[in-house]
């Protein structure tokens, strides 16, 4: 039984989906031990599985089965009922929870398997905020179709910008937007505001001053270096989300042409 947070992107928002593949997750997991084990021992093994762990993807994995390093940010033991252990785990993207359970079972010496799993968070999305079941979603659509009210449907569909909630952002001038939509790299003079915490080669989101996402990009410089420079390349788009032509084209033309078009 696997349930919980499954982000589904629509149409142009599908271009932002890779953000979820980079994002950490949280799960509520019910693990079944194969023998009786003292609670203290379970606790101490769960502590050992916090931090960096090595994990070999399962037989039926979609990735190459080589040992990978993954970070378990946190494990909270919630309840032990006989051989059933309920815990909450926060982990790096790409962690297999089923494998985590069998590895914990091996470390305990008794064996264990995952019995039930619920994802409570995928990056910016949690089960507590704007979470909809299929039936609830269908109901918002019905209200729109039959009663002509769009608010419930509007509320169920979140703007693509929410995907970038935890990705550091760079806000750019209107005049820089269309070039980015065409895949151009972002030059420092186009930047108006920038968030701290950007390292070289880290994922960043390029936003307009109205708060619309333009592209997911990879930084070429840190926040500090960008703030300290007058020119140079700050970031390279990985995935453009905004359609070209949304903002006027102000690149590849000289000042003269620009002035004549505006008049």
């Amino acid at each position, binding site marked *: *039984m*696997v*349930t*919980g947070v*499954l*982000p*589904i*992107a*629509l*149409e142009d*928002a*599908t271009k932002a*989906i890779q953000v979820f593949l980079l*994002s950490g*997750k949280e799960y509520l997991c019910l693990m079944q031990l194969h023998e009786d084990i003292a609670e203290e021992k379970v606790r101490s093994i769960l502590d050992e599985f916090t*931090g960096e762990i090595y994990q070999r*993807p*399962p037989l*039926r*994995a979609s*990735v190459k089965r080589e040992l990978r*390093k993954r970070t378990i940010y946190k494990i909270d033991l919630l309840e032990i009922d006989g051989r059933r252990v309920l815990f909450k785990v926060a982990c*790096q*993207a*790409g962690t*297999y929870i*089923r494998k985590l359970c069998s590895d914990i079972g091996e470390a305990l010496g008794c064996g264990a398997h*995952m019995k039930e799993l619920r994802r409570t968070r*995928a*990056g910016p999305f*949690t*089960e507590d*905020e704007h*979470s*909809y079941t*299929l039936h609830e*979603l*269908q109901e918002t*659509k019905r209200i729109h179709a039959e009663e002509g009210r*769009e608010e419930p449907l*509007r509320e*169920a*569909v979140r*703007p*693509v910008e929410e*995907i970038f909630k*935890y990705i*550091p952002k760079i806000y750019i*001038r*209107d005049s820089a937007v269309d070039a980015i939509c065409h895949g151009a790299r972002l030059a420092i003079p186009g*930047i*108006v505001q*920038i*968030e701290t*915490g950007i390292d070289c080669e*880290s994922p960043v989101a390029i936003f307009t*001053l*109205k708060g*619309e996402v333009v592209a997911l990009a990879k930084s070429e410089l840190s926040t500090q270096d960008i703030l300290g420079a007058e020119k140079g390349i700050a970031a390279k788009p990985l995935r453009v*989300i905004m359609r070209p032509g949304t903002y006027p084209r102000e690149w590849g033309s000289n000042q003269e042409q620009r002035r004549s078009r505006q008049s």
Partner: protein
Amino acid sequence: MTEQRPIWEAERELKIRTRAETDPRFGMKPEARPLQEHIRLGVINLDKPPNPSSHQVTAWVKKILGASHVGHGGTLEAARPGRPDGHRSAPDSA
């Protein structure tokens, strides 16, 4: 990303490099989008039920909303050993 803390605990500050205005004639605030645009640039935080696969659930959402295409982020499956369909589970799945 190999941070020791999850990304949702990161604290960031907004730094101003320069001042600039934005022209109201182009683009719009995300919350001001007409419904059709809102859906075109929309994402659903779906609470996946236990039985259908992530793939099936995604196809239903596409149908309910009449969207031209959809995609899900991070498969959420029970890839049980010996499952007859030979389904391969992505990372982040069970």
